[in-house]
């Protein structure tokens, strides 16, 4: 017995000694490793661009795709008749699949001459049949949430079909025949397509640059489900981008994980320099940043609220200097054509308890517009990565009138806000104790903070009005929107085509505008002006009309114009040839189709983050003794 005990004791001592040695080595080694810089000899995977972002592709079919995740894949793999003059930020229209085009004197008939060298990545040539088929199917599928109702609406016969109430999830043969018989899209000969419009729509060519007008291979689609008007083609939703005319083609789409496109070796134009582009889906911002710093990702999506993880805060806020705070990064901030976020006020909202309709009162709306602290939102919430909202037309676009907007813009003024609110209260628009709920979209940090900011500002005024903040709840949203019950909600618009007609109807036309309808106003005069401006060919007259509408929108204050964001591009500096274009759905990766590449290096320096030894130690160290001592 005693012998056993002694050997047991010495065994224990030995074990303890070993453990102590291990811990010491780990500690010392860890200390050194954490503070030593290190080098990576080569750029990882020099022929592949890795983009890490959040959000998965919804549908690959260009006829119905309307989200950025699918948009960027379509932009890499498929092409339209015309596109923008690239590389660069220009929105000038240039030839693509159509090498030239003629416009009739009345501005309604466009004749496109296809490039005879254009072909799909399976070798088959691009014919006028394919073009007609592509456009027709986009209209005939007619997804009310898709791009067709916005972009193809002026093609002859399309408006009737797209506005028909009984044409979605239902094949309305009469409507289909009516559209086809209207002859909006005609094949003249195998290399000539003619599109007739219902009016002299000036921005028509811009609309043809959007992904919805991408040309698909008719034979391929017919062999895989064909066209059923009013319904999706499931095969196309999954596989459309595998056969396109673009410099890349889809090779893999694993939902919620990654999309892989490879270079099209059969490309009819200038081949891409990169062999492959991989888009990874990672929802956690922190993980994306780690991947970028470690070199696993070449470019990532970074929200404005994390801007100062990569650039110097003071230099940016004081004089807009972009200075990366980690070596090896390349950061670029560019103005966009996105009008977002903004608060949409529903004038028809009625308080369920009191019956009051405060948002119908213009003074109340003025109060709201003066109560929002624009400067804090721009500087603190979105870290300076935006400019204050300027109405429906973004800066840089035709129709944007800087002086006009500067004179109309609201600024943060608690005194004025209080004045207008009290005026509204005196007029009976609301009474003390009124509560209104602000709704924001889940996951959008900037919007969440914007809501809280407005809530705090209004609370500080002390005018008997309280704002609550609520994440957007789909079943409630659905039911309430049907009944126009949402009081205040976020609205934002990204460009489909580079023309004010993409924006102004949405915000101002009470008859058909997506947001205008939800905000419950409808001014026939303004609607007429918006329609008129769409088909006005004289630029001066157009401008004047848009000025009128913009003035009206500001004066009615149906919308609190919060911001126009900057595009944040964060990449490793070995990525060369990147450029920004505001019309790209995926500004981070689409330049791969226009010569972006990765430069090989031999002296890459890694990026380090100050280690949080304390936090890690607090979690790991107390558990170490348990793993160390075991057995009898």
């Amino acid at each position, binding site marked *: 017995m005693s012998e056993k005990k002694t050997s047991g004791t010495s065994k224990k001592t030995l074990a303890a000694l070993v453990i102590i040695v291990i811990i010491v080595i780990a500690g010392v080694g860890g200390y050194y490793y954490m503070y030593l810089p290190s080098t990576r000899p080569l750029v990882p995977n020099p022929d592949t661009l*890795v983009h890490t972002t959040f959000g998965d592709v919804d549908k690959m079919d260009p006829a119905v795709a309307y989200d950025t995740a699918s948009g960027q894949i379509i932009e890499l793999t498929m092409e339209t008749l015309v596109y923008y003059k690239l590389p660069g930020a220009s929105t000038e229209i240039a030839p693509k699949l159509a090498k030239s085009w003629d416009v009739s004197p009345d501005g309604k008939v466009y004749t496109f001459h296809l490039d005879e060298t254009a072909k799909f990545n399976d070798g088959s040539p691009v014919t006028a049949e394919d073009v007609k088929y592509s456009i027709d199917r986009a209209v005939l599928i007619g997804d009310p949430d898709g791009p067709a109702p916005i972009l193809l609406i002026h093609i002859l016969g399309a408006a009737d079909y797209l506005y028909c109430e009984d044409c979605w999830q239902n094949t309305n043969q009469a409507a289909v025949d009516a559209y086809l018989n209207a002859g909006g899209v005609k094949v003249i000969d195998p290399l000539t397509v003619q599109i007739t419009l219902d009016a002299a729509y000036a921005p028509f060519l811009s609309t043809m640059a959007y992904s919805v007008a991408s040309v698909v291979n008719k034979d391929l689609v017919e062999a895989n489900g064909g066209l059923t008007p009013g319904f999706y083609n499931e095969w196309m939703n999954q596989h459309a981008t595998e056969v396109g005319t673009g410099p890349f083609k889809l090779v893999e789409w694993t*939902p919620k994980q990654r999309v892989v496109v490879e270079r099209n070796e059969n490309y009819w134009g200038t081949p891409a320099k990169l062999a492959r582009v991989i888009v990874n889906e990672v929802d956690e911002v922190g*993980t994306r940043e780690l991947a970028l710093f470690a*070199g696993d990702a070449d470019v990532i999506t970074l929200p404005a609220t994390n801007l100062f993880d990569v650039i110097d805060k003071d230099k940016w806020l004081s004089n807009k200097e972009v200075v990366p705070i980690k070596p090896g990064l390349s950061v670029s901030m560019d103005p966009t054509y996105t009008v977002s976020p903004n608060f949409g006020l529903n004038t028809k909202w009625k308080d369920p308890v009191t019956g009051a309709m405060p948002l119908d009162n213009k003074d109340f709306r003025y109060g709201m517009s003066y109560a929002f602290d624009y400067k804090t939102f721009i500087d603190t919430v979105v870290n300076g990565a935006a400019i204050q909202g300027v109405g429906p037309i973004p800066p840089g676009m035709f129709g944007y009138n800087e002086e006009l907007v500067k004179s109309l813009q609201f600024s943060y003024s608690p005194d004025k806000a209080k004045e207008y609110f009290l005026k509204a209260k005196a007029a009976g628009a609301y009474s003390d104790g009124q509560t209104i709920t602000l709704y924001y979209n889940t996951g959008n940090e900037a919007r969440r903070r914007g809501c809280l900011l407005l809530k705090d500002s209004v609370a500080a005024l002390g005018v008997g009005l309280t704002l609550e903040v609520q994440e957007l709840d789909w079943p409630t949203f659905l039911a309430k929107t*049907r009944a126009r019950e949402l009081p205040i909600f976020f609205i934002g618009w990204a460009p489909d085509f580079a023309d004010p007609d993409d924006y102004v109807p949405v915000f101002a036309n009470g008859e058909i505008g997506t947001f205008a309808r939800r905000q419950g106003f409808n001014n026939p005069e303004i609607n007429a002006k918006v329609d008129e401006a769409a088909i006005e060919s004289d630029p001066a007259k157009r401008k004047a009309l848009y000025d009128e509408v913009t003035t009206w929108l500001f004066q009615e204050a149906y919308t609190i114009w919060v911001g126009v964001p900057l595009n944040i591009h964060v990449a490793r500096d070995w990525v060369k040839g990147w450029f920004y274009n505001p019309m790209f759905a995926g500004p981070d990766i689409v330049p791969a189709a226009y010569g972006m590449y990765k430069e090989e290096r031999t002296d890459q320096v890694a990026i380090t983050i100050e280690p949080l030894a304390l936090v*890690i130690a607090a979690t790991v160290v107390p558990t170490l003794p348990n793993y160390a001592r075991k057995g009898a």
Partner: protein
Amino acid sequence: MRAKAHSSSSFFCSDCSATLLAQSVFLLRLVSSVKLRHYVIRRLLLMIPVLIGVSMMTFTLSHVIGDPVAAYISSQDVKLSEQQIQRIVEAHHLDDPLYVQYFYYISDLLRGDWGISRTDSDRPVIESIQRYFPATAELTMVSMVFALALGIPIGIISAVRKDRPEDHATRVFSLVGVSMPVFWLALLLQYAFYYQLKIHNLPNLPSGGRVDQFVWIDNPLHVVTGLYTVDGLITGNFAIFFDALVHLILPGFALSYVFMAVFVRMMRSSMLEVMRQDYITLARSKGLSERVVIYRHALRNAMIPTVTVAGLAFGGLLAGAVLTETVFSFPGIGRWSVSAIVRDDIASIMGFMLIIAVVYMLANLIVDLLYAWIDPRIRLG
């Protein structure tokens, strides 16, 4: 022989020298016993009313409390006309009385129509489940292995050294596990084992996902079960096998930490109970070393309640997977359900609920059967 006289409390004859073959024969005899079959059948039949109840629960939540139309709308924005909504209402009998609706709901479920998953590119919910479930199953199984492999020894130590510092330390450790937010741990693990190791050129663990994108592209996997490790082994694709395994380490550990705590507590309390039994005192008095006493006698009996708890813990692992998968971008049903919840995709949420309930019940059933198979008292009782 003396030991056998007291073996009515233990199940296998632990210090008899029966060969593995003899023991297997013994087990086979157990399995084929009529009483066991009856037990199994009875348990399976009892599951049916519970399943019906579960479907009633999901029906109530989606059709009675929530807006029933929301479950069938496959679009995000509201550009639907009254006509289109009416068509949906008619197609799914949403205007009919509740019991009629329930009937159609059940027949839809049985036919395989579980609705459309708005958050998964409008794929049918059943398809989304088929796609994402194997990943979660793999992750949960690995976590279970971690939790058992680490939790049981720790529980034994804690019991053997009751009330001494080791006991207190392990109890705190395990309770910290139960009380800690799992994603916190997940993020720290990612930082330490992925980032810090990687930038210093050390072999590192991946930051997430199921396989490395380049390994996947270069070694295409022929998917059989959906479990990449298993499929890799079956098809001889060892690159994928190892890669998938490596990708399971961090999320598996993060997920298991919480359940290690559960097993530690279970093992501790059941060991304590078993160690007080007479046959243990007898074994000790026979002069057997402490180690033999613990491992050959006490442990087996103490495992029974632990195995039971494993079934319950499995459900908890499924729940914990929800948060862990988000941090590690692991494409399982947990992550899918979070995106469904965030966008209030009722059809997906209810589909998720149903499948989790079914899996959880099956897990408990298996545990009960194991329990019955192991312990003759239950089987014959």
